[in-house]
């Protein structure tokens, strides 16, 4: 190459700075993007590799169903290919914190075993490592768990599921002394467990001394090969598989040994223990039977004896009673007799008294009578005497005088009468005579009477006197006899009395004696009774003592036996467990986060393969156009050089150098910019998920070389090809202007009506478009590529959207999940129902269960991130979780016919409605029909109604409560949480909003990646359009000049170019939008994270943005180009000959 040629080349570059720079820029963008993204995965791998090497990450983790002992460890460390072994402990417990129980995996602090290296060293971030018991190191990054500070106390619940935590660790309370990262957990994933909700939320490290296991629970193994293999490399994988087989062999051997040493022994021991137990048991049973018999005999005897004594006593008692009765009778008789006798005596006495009284009365009456009679007699006599005297003195004279008078009167009258003869006086005299007669008669009668009366009285008196005297004598005699009788009676009475007294005394004495006899009998009886009682009590007490002793002994023995039984049972279950000793050899891939890290790195690599290749392709394409143009422009020059005798090689070389310099410098700039920015930006997004430190740049040399080579080779090849094409001509023809590409009628012109109505410029544009077909293709492809990239970038952004918006707003309508402590039994459901019903801010609620499930369909098996959700009441579900198809938003209903599954799962396994899938979980295994496929973005869910669950598994599911709040502000959520967590029946309250926030944060970092993509795509679009327009103008500078000369305004001139550009851009955009759909779909599916479905729909706005952005760039480019058009020099352009 001559000096002139070199100069010419350099000058060429100087003269066409814009073109050179635009080639450079496009190459820089393409190569930079490619190299940058390609450097990301190796950098991530390197980061992980360095981290794992520094922390000496284990190659294998061995877990055995029976733990490990020293011999096991020795056997493992002697296994071929094993370099280091580190035995360790772990257990899963529940933390006791305010916000509910988190599952924590407690791991023993790495400690070197004998002369082995420490494996899985922690990276201390803060504080120190534990130095003594009860100190704890918590993990640095907790996404779901509680964030602890140094000095905080960590308290664990004493049970974890069915396990008593104190059989695993010896303290439940720890002090945080350090915060560290573990190489075992590099991502937010923590793996699963059978404790709590089944998901480990954080891990912590405690000293070995805090574990109380007898055998180690896990062995970390470092293999020889890993020193020379990179993590994640194929070499590592194949070596790991080989070594794993060897370890499996060791495991088999150790299991056999264990079977022999431990199981057989334990079985023998168990058997002998069982034998001993039954022997002892038999013996004890016999003894107890004997003792029991004795006690029963004693009881019998006591009863017999007591009964006998009792009967005797009863007899005595009867005797006493009859004695008592007899005595009583006797006493009664005695007293009756006595009282009778006394009554008789008294009667007699009273009779006597009466008689005496009567006598006295009679005597007195007699005396009185006598005296009265005497007196009467005396009086009678006196009266007689008196009356006689009186009569004699008075009455008799009177009466004798009266009778004489009356006789004189009668005699006078009889004389008168007889003298008288007058009748009347006679009659009166008669009358008077009569009267006088009468009077005389009466007086005579009276007198006579009186004399008679006296006579009578006197006789009477005399008789009375005699009668009196007789009577007096008789009375006196009577009285005397009465008195005599009385005296006799009195004497008799006295005698009777005396006899009574004697008899009384005698009877009394008898009675007293009888009483005393009775009393003594009674006291004897009482003594007997009390004696009996005493004996009875004594006997009973003895018996009781014996019984108690028996019982005590019995219960003691029973306890002993129960314990023994339990020991035997434990031993049995232990032995049963032992019966299948199995070692599990876990590789690094089983570490949560380990394989996803590689997966993510690969995904980025996949994006790096698709996206930048596309990018590079566009860039190369544009370069090709540019170079073609450049070379065609230099046609004359080529001819001249050729005419001057320069060899083809030299001429070609100039353009190869030109394009080569552009490509190399562009690539260099691009690589530098790309690798220094993109890996960091992208890894920053992933840093949210991985805690393994900061990325150090590892340049993916092959891809850098590939990128640069692609750019250089393409541009150089284009230069050579185009140049050679020109060189094929003769110099003379080369030096003549190339016949301008002729105009042609285009198809459109044959559609006359349309063509006629097109404006002149439109016609021109239309013809121009088809005139340079290659440029049209280039422009359209270039623009389409940019648009597609922007669509893809936005589409990717869109695809994250449903994860938050659709998932948490359209599908999940509930606000909170309340988990009961007992896991959601029927009682829990009732309790929670009652509790939530009274909660004011509650808008709706229902119960849905969630358990891990493994899904099988044909040969596919899905284990992680898949849940079986049982809906207690399918009618209630709709207002809390909407199960609908994604495309036509048709609500799906839960029926007993089968289950509903989510789209991602269906897509992944190719499951269609009506297919049968196999479910296996803790509840059991089942085969169910798929009745519908619903929209769901996070994890995989299989929904079934409670009735189906019950018919499949024969039991009720354990439900959590989903709650929708009226007011779901942060404050009211906090209120709900604090109120509900106070309740000791509630284990946890979690909110959709917080999950949403977590998710948003995670996705926001991905947005950054997308933004980078958009910016790069936009930059590419700009450069492509600029370049193409530039070429367009350069090619048509004569035309432009002609227009100008013809007096077209700048605007009009530009519009010719613009119209073409805009049409091309629009065509490109249209093509790009279509390409974008496929590109987006491809990219989204490539980078889609496991168990998460990205949105499949590109929003209309994304197309709009992509189209708008491209159009905007196009207009911007046009604006820039208008200056260029304006500055086209008519004179120069028209003068020069192409």
């Amino acid at each position: 190459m001559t000096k002139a040629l070199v100069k010419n080349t350099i000058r060429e570059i100087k003269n066409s700075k814009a073109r050179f720079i635009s080639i450079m820029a496009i190459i820089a963008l393409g190569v930079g993007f490619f190299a940058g993204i390609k450097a990301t995965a190796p950098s991530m791998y390197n980061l992980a590799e360095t981290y794992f090497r520094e922390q000496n990450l284990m190659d294998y983790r061995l877990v055995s169903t029976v733990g490990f002992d020293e011999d096991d460890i020795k056997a493992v460390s002697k296994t071929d290919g094993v370099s280091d072994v580190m035995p360790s402990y772990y257990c899963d417990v529940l933390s006791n914190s305010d916000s509910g129980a988190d599952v924590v995996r407690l791991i023993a602090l790495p400690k070197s075993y004998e002369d082995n290296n420490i494996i899985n060293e922690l990276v201390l971030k803060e504080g120190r490592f534990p130095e003594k018991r009860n100190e704890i190191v918590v993990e640095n990054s907790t996404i779901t768990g509680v964030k602890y500070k140094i000095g905080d106390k960590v308290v664990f619940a004493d049970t974890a599921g069915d396990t008593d935590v104190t059989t695993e660790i010896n303290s439940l309370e720890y002090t945080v002394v350090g915060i560290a990262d573990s190489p075992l957990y590099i991502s937010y994933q923590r793996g699963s467990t059978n404790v709590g909700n089944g998901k480990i939320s954080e891990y912590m490290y405690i000293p070995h001394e805090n574990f109380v296991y007898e055998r180690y629970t896990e062995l970390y193994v470092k293999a020889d090969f890993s020193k020379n293999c990179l993590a994640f490399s194929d070499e590592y994988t194949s070596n790991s598989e080989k070594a794993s087989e060897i370890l499996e062999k060791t495991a088999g051997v150790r299991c056999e040994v264990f079977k022999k040493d431990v199981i057989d022994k334990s079985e023998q021991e168990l058997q002998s223990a069982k034998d001993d137990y039954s022997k002892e048991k038999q013996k004890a049973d016999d003894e107890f039977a004997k003792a029991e018999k004795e006690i029963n005999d004693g009881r019998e005897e006591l009863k017999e004896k007591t009964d006998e004594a009792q009967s005797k006593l009863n007899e005595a008692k009867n005797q006493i009673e009859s004695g008592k009765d007899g005595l009583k009778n006797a006493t009664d008789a005695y007293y009756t007799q006595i009282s009778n006798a006394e009554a008789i005596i008294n009667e007699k006495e009273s009779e006597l008294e009466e008689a005496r009284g009567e006598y006295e009365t009679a005597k007195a009456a007699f005396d009185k009578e006598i005296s009265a009679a005497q007196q009467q007699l005396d009086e009678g006599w006196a009266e007689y005497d008196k009356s006689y005297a009186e009569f004699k003195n008075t009455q008799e004279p009177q009466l004798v005088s009266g009778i004489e008078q009356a006789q004189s009167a009668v005699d006078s009258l009889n004389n008168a009468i007889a003298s008288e003869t007058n009748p009347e006086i006679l009659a009166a005299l008669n009358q008077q005579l009569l009267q006088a007669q009468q009077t005389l008669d009466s007086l005579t009668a009276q007198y006579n009477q009186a004399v008679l009366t006296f006579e009578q009285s006197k006789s009477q008196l005399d008789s009375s006197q005699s009668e009196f005297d007789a009577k007096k004598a008789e009375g006196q005699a009577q009285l005397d006899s009465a008195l005599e009788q009385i005296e006799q009676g009195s004497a008799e009475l006295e005698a009777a009395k005396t006899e009574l007294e004697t008899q009384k005394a005698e009877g009394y004495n008898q009675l007293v004696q009888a009483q005393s006899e009775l009393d003594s009998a009674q006291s004897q009886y009482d003594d007997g009774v009390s004696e009996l009682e005493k004996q009875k009590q004594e006997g009973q007490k003895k018996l009781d003592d014996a019984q108690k002793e028996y019982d005590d002994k019995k219960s003691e023995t029973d306890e002993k036996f129960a314990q023994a039984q339990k020991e035997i049972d434990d031993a049995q279950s232990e032995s049963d467990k032992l019966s299948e000793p199995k070692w599990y050899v876990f590789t690094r891939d089983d570490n949560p986060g380990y394989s996803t890290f590689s997966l993510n790195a690969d995904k980025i690599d996949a994006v790096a393969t698709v996206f930048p290749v596309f990018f590079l392709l566009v860039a190369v394409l544009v370069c090709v156009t540019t170079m073609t143009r450049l070379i065609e422009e230099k046609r004359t020059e080529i001819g001249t050089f050729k005419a001057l005798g320069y060899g083809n090689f030299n001429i070609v070389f100039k353009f190869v150098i030109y394009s080569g310099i552009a490509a190399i410098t562009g690539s260099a700039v691009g690589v530098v910019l790309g690798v220094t920015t993109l890996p960091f930006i992208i890894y920053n997004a992933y840093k949210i998920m991985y805690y393994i430190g900061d990325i150090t740049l590892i340049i993916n040399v092959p891809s850098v070389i590939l990128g640069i080579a692609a750019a250089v080779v393409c541009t150089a090849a284009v230069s050579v090809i185009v140049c050679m094409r020109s060189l094929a001509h003769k110099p003379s023809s080369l030096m003549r202007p190339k016949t301008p590409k002729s105009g042609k009628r285009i198809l459109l012109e044959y559609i006359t009506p349309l063509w006629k109505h097109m404006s002149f410029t439109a016609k021109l544009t239309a013809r121009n478009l088809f005139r340079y077909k290659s440029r049209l293709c280039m422009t359209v492809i270039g623009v389409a590529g940019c648009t597609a990239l922007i669509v893809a970038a936005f589409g990717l952004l869109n695809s994250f959207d449903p994860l938050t918006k659709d998932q948490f707003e359209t599908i999940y309508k509930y606000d909170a999940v309340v988990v009961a402590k007992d896991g959601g039994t029927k009682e829990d459901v009732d309790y929670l129902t009652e509790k939530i019903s009274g909660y004011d801010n509650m808008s709706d609620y229902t119960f849905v269960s969630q358990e891990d499930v493994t899904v099988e369909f044909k040969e596919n098996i899905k284990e992680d991130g898949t849940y079986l959700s049982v809906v207690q009441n399918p009618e209630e579900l709709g207002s809390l979780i909407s199960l609908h198809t994604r495309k036509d938003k048709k609500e799906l209903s839960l029926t007993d016919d089968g289950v509903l599954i989510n789209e991602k799962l269906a897509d992944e396994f190719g499951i269609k409605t009506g297919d049968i899938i196999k479910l296996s979980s803790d509840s059991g295994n089942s085969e169910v029909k798929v009745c519908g496929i619903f929209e769901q973005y996070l994890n995989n869910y299989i929904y079934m109604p409670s009735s189906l669950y019950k018919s499949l598994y024969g039991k009720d599911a354990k439900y959590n409560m989903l709650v929708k709040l009226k007011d779901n502000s942060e404050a009211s959520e906090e209120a709900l949480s604090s109120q509900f967590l106070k309740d000791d029946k509630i284990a946890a309250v979690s909110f959709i909003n917080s999950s949403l926030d977590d998710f948003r944060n995670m996705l926001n970092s991905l947005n950054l990646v997308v933004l980078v993509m958009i910016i790069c795509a936009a930059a590419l679009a700009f450069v492509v359009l600029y370049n193409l327009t530039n070429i367009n103008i350069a090619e048509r500078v004569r035309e432009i000049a002609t227009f100008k000369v013809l007096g077209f305004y700048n605007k009009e001139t530009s519009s010719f170019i613009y119209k073409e550009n805009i049409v091309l851009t629009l065509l490109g955009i249209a093509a790009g939008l279509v390409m974008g759909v496929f590109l987006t779909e491809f990219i989204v599916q490539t980078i889609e994270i496991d168990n998460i479905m990205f949105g499949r729909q590109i929003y209309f706005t994304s197309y709009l943005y992509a189209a708008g952005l491209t159009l905007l760039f196009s207009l911007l480019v046009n604006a820039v180009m208008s200056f260029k058009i304006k500055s086209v020099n008519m004179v120069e352009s028209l003068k020069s000959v192409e």
Partner: protein
Amino acid sequence: MSLVEFKNVYKRYKMGEVTINAVDGISFKINEGEFAIVVGASGAGKTTVLNILGGMDNCSEGEICVRDKDISKFDDKQLIEYRRFDIGFVFQFYNLVQNLTAKENVELAAQICKDPLDSEKALESVGLLDRKDNFPAQLSGGEQQRVSIARALAKRPGLLLCDEPTGALDYNTGRQILKLLQDTCRKEKMTVVLITHNSAITPMADHVIEMKSGKIIRDVYNENPKNVEEIEW
């Protein structure tokens, strides 16, 4: 009354330290309806003069009056309008738009004028009506140049400027073109300014301006301009 008047016009180019006067203080007049030929060797500055006159270039100094307007004071927009309405150009390499048919090339110019000649008539006047739908590439050089003239004429320009219109054509075709121009000048009373290095054709002009090194060395009027047919070169 002169249509065009150059008064002491300079055009200077700075080449580093050196200033070159491409047009070195020239003055001349061209009257309405004249057929003027500017003749001179390569580098005499005649194209510069034409460019300045056509409003494609600015002069560095002096006045250029066209219809009493000093176009040297025109800004870009005025210059464009000047070109648009007053000037018709015919170039050595025709400068037809390849992508337009003959008729369309004429229309391209006609459509921006106030009172254009009918495109087909313009083509008819150059005798190419039957080729109106052909693309430039389908036409011979002479035909292309005639389309170019038709395009210039369609604008009904006050001034038709021709820059070596026969330079790329063979003798006979060149004559035909010159004849066309002369006829146009005469029939249409069109003022034509033609640039050529070929002094042999100067007899056909009304007005001959000879330039050398940026200066006018001869400015004469032919009393009896000859017809093209009468000239041989």
